[in-house]
C-alpha cells in the first residue's frame, strides 16, 4: 500500500521510476485531516512530517491499543510481532489522537491505564464514536429502532 498511498496523499514528494497512476483517481484539494487505520502507520508518519493533522482509527475496542503496547515490550512471540508493535507505538505518538469504534463507558478503564504509562502517546485524546450502525444489518428493521434497542441494552 505504501507507494499508492504516497502517490495519492503527497504527490509532490512522490518519487518513482513509474509514472503510472497507482490509484483509481487522485485527490484534487488540500487535505485537512487524515484518519488512518491503526495498522496503516505510514500515512500518520508522512502527515506528521508535513504538518497535516492525523488521527489513528481503532475499529474495535481500545483494548487493541493496550495489546499493541504490551506486544512492543514483551519478549514472547504471541500476538503482534514485537518489531511491528514497536513501529505502531511510535506512530501513535506522531498522531494527534485516537478515534475508537467503542463506547467510552466500556473502555474508559483502558484509557485510564494508558494515562498511567510514561509513553509519549499516553495523553493523546481518545474520541469514542460507537455505536456505528450499518444500515445493512436487517432489512426488516429500521436503523433508528435498532440503535435504540442497542443503546438501551448497553
Amino acid at each position, binding site marked *: 500500500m505504501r507507494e499508492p498511498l504516497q502517490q495519492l496523499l503527497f504527490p509532490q514528494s512522490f518519487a518513482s521510476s513509474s509514472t503510472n497512476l497507482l490509484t483509481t483517481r487522485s485527490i484534487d484539494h488540500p487535505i485537512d*485531516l487524515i484518519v488512518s487505520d491503526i495498522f496503516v502507520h505510514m500515512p500518520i508518519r508522512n502527515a506528521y512530517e508535513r504538518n497535516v493533522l492525523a488521527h489513528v482509527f481503532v475499529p474495535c475496542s481500545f483494548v487493541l491499543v493496550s495489546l499493541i503496547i504490551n506486544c512492543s515490550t514483551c519478549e514472547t512471540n504471541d500476538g503482534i510481532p514485537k518489531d511491528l508493535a514497536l513501529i505502531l507505538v511510535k506512530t501513535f505518538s506522531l498522531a494527534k489522537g485516537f478515534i475508537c469504534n467503542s463506547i467510552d463507558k466500556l473502555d474508559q478503564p483502558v484509557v485510564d491505564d494508558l494515562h498511567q504509562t510514561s509513553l509519549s502517546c499516553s495523553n493523546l485524546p481518545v474520541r469514542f464514536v460507537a455505536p456505528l450502525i450499518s444500515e445493512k444489518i436487517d432489512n426488516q428493521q429500521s436503523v433508528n429502532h435498532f440503535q435504540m434497542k442497542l443503546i438501551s441494552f448497553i
Partner: protein
Amino acid sequence: MAEIQQLKSRGHVVLIASPFFGQMLPLVDFAKELSIYHHVIYVASASKLNTLKQHGFLTEDQDSKLILPNCQVDFIGLFDDNDDDYEVSSI
C-alpha cells in the same frame, strides 16, 4: 441543502483502511457519519472496494464511480496488489 453544503466546505477528511473487512466496515460507517459535516474520501485497496460492492455495501453511480447510498463519500482504490483473501492460520 445549502446549509449542508456550507458545512461540507469546512474540511476535507481522508480515511484510510487496511485491506481487511473487519477493519474496513467500521470505517465505512464512520465515513457515513462524518460525511454529514465534511467532505470525506475513503481510501482502500481497489480489489477490496470491489468486494464491498459485490456484497452490496457500495454501489456505482452513472459515471461508474463507487458511492455509498444516500451519502456523499468519495471512494478511491489503491492498486497495491492486495488481492488475496487473507485467511487466519493457526500459530
